[in-house]
């Protein structure tokens, strides 16, 4: 077996606040991702999913974020890499698209110039070569009238077109890893469908592995191969996508599924996850979900539960797994 494309080991990120408290945003994350695969990283606000991706990209502010652990991509140790070398990787092997296409595009350069910049910087193309490649890229992301749009400024484009432009920039150098942080959250439903379609198309080419960060389990079901569910800075479940929805093995995953209103039937009442996310400056000793978990017992609160295998290719951070026996 070949080595995975991306390996994350014991990644920890904490932020020191002005009040002297240290918040552990990411707390011992282990992840591997093979080439060409699509991994969904799911969780609610504050679970650490975005911070994990920013740590991989090397985009966290060094002054306030303390990072430890190991992140390896294609044999490069990203956390140890000097800034200059990291800049060579970013935009080349490693690319990212963000939620807000308006704020991630530079408003004072045309779309074309922003794609060309990447190609000239990383591929050493001449301006003319880069320009025709930019148009080709815009065509690939189904930008309408690519040869006209290439000279357009971001404010002239609709939200969906901006997201396409951003994806075109990210794809410019055929990255080995594409991180997409809530790429459709700011878009309207019908435009979201278009962008998801585009991501599915990219996935089918098998060129890039994708980490899709989202809070939306529906989006995960639509395009991911595998899923990692995060809660309070930790990965609590890892599974192939089919199994996660069929037979979730962590109570938090069940709670998320239960809270979704169903389109296909009428519900008398929605299920909820009681309580709140723990304070990450002083997380509980035992299982972090125990306070909100209907299946928690005394021993869940006693010690931090380890991530343990529960069958082929799947792991759960619940000492009571397999959980289906709890309701048998």
């Amino acid at each position: 077996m070949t080595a995975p494309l991306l390996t994350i080991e014991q990644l920890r990120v904490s932020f020191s606040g002005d009040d002297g408290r240290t918040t552990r945003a990411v707390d011992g994350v282990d992840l591997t991702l093979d080439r060409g695969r699509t991994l969904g990283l799911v969780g609610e606000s504050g679970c650490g999913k975005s911070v994990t991706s920013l740590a991989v990209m090397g985009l966290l502010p060094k002054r306030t974020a303390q990072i430890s652990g190991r992140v390896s991509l294609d044999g490069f140790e990203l956390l140890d890499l000097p800034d200059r070398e990291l800049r060579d990787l970013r935009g080349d092997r490693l690319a990212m698209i963000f939620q807000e296409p308006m704020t991630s595009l530079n408003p004072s350069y045309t779309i074309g110039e922003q794609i060309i910049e990447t190609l000239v910087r990383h591929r050493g193309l001449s301006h003319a070569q880069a320009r025709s490649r930019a148009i080709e890229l815009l065509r690939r992301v189904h930008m309408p009238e690519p040869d006209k749009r290439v000279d357009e400024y971001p404010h002239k484009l609709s939200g969906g077109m901006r997201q396409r432009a951003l994806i075109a920039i990210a794809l410019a150098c055929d990255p080995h890893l594409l991180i997409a942080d809530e790429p459709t959250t700011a878009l309207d439903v019908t435009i979201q469908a278009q962008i998801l379609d585009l991501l599915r198309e990219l996935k089918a080419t098998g060129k890039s592995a994708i980490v899709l960060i989202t809070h939306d389990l529906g989006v995960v079901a639509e395009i991911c191969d595998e899923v990692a569910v995060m809660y309070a800075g930790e990965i609590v479940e890892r599974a192939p996508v089919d199994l996660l929805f069929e037979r979730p093995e962590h109570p938090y995953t069940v709670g998320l599924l239960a809270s979704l209103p169903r389109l296909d039937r009428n519900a008398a009442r929605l299920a909820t996850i009681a309580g709140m996310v723990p304070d990450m400056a002083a997380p509980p000793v035992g299982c972090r979900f125990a306070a909100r978990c209907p299946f928690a017992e005394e021993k869940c609160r006693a010690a931090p539960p380890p991530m343990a295998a529960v069958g082929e290719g799947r792991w759960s951070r619940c000492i009571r797994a397999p959980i289906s026996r709890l309701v048998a």
Partner: protein
Amino acid sequence: MSAPLLEADGLVKHFVARRSVLGKATATVKAVDGVSFSLAAGETLALVGESGSGKSTVGRLVLRLIDPTEGAVRFEGRDIFSLRPRELREYRRRAQLVFQDPYGSLNPRMTVGDILTEPLQLHNVVPPRRRRERMYELLETVGLDPRFARRYPHEFSGGQRQRIAIARALAVEPRLIVCDEPVSALDVSIRSQVLNLLRDLQQRLGLAYIFISHDLSVVKYIATRVAVMYLGRIVETATTQDLFAGPRHPYTRALLSAVPVPAPRARRDRQILPGDVPSPITPPPGCHLHLRCPYAVERCKIERPLLAAQADGQVQDHTTACHRWQELPPAGTAVPAVVRSPELERLVAAFSGSGNGGGSSDVARVDADDPREAARPG
């Protein structure tokens, strides 16, 4: 059927988008372009649509926060745009608003107690000596601990803030609440708590809601009737049941089939609309959807389709603004069924039980800073 609580009749709202040097309007946005509907007491009408559909503008018109270019809104039979100042004040008591952003809609310098007492004072809802007591009751109604009255909005999570906003709306004992995307900014688990609360309150107090949302799964849960809007017009209205079981308008179908469903292998007949929503400054003639509609014919480009009921008059409540809806192929499986194993159903049920859904479960300690904010970088 009893007389409706609220009736909107041919509402039109144009905003000036550009002016010439002399101040003459040179471009107008037709935000709302002939919208009519009615709402009975205790009912929920959902206005569904994407950005620019005019759904929020309709909400603001209904509350008379802005004046219409044309058309009327009648509340309990009276035109709200011809109310005198005193009557308008009274109307403000009957019709309230809950916004999307619970961070921006609460005054950060006022305690929760003051936020809830202010409307009681302004409208003199209860005599001064009873105000405090009433304020505590309001907090309890929305499932918050009365001890929270002395705290400030920043000490609460998003879900709790939305509860405070709902309590403030309830303070004046309204009959109608316009909820503008009230759960869009909330996480899934919190969202379901707020949705349950809204439904409980409706049953208990007989409230009517206008529920503005882009999220069809939320609408399905909360609404009795749905009006789907596109570029300032209603394109389809029906009871929630009928709309989800048999969407007629091509736009409604596309909207339904675009909602991501948490079922990886579900088969569905997807219909992806090409292109973007056209600018409301220069909307296309005829049917607004014709540029993106796979079924558009010559007639759609010229003639505006009106909301029409089914020809045989069977389902009077289901109206569609499409020239061709009767000839369209069946909608197919726009919404696939999500099949769950019995074990999973039982696991899910464990979250519905254990006093979870009661609304009071969110009565949480606010002993530390909200971890949600703390964990967010920059």
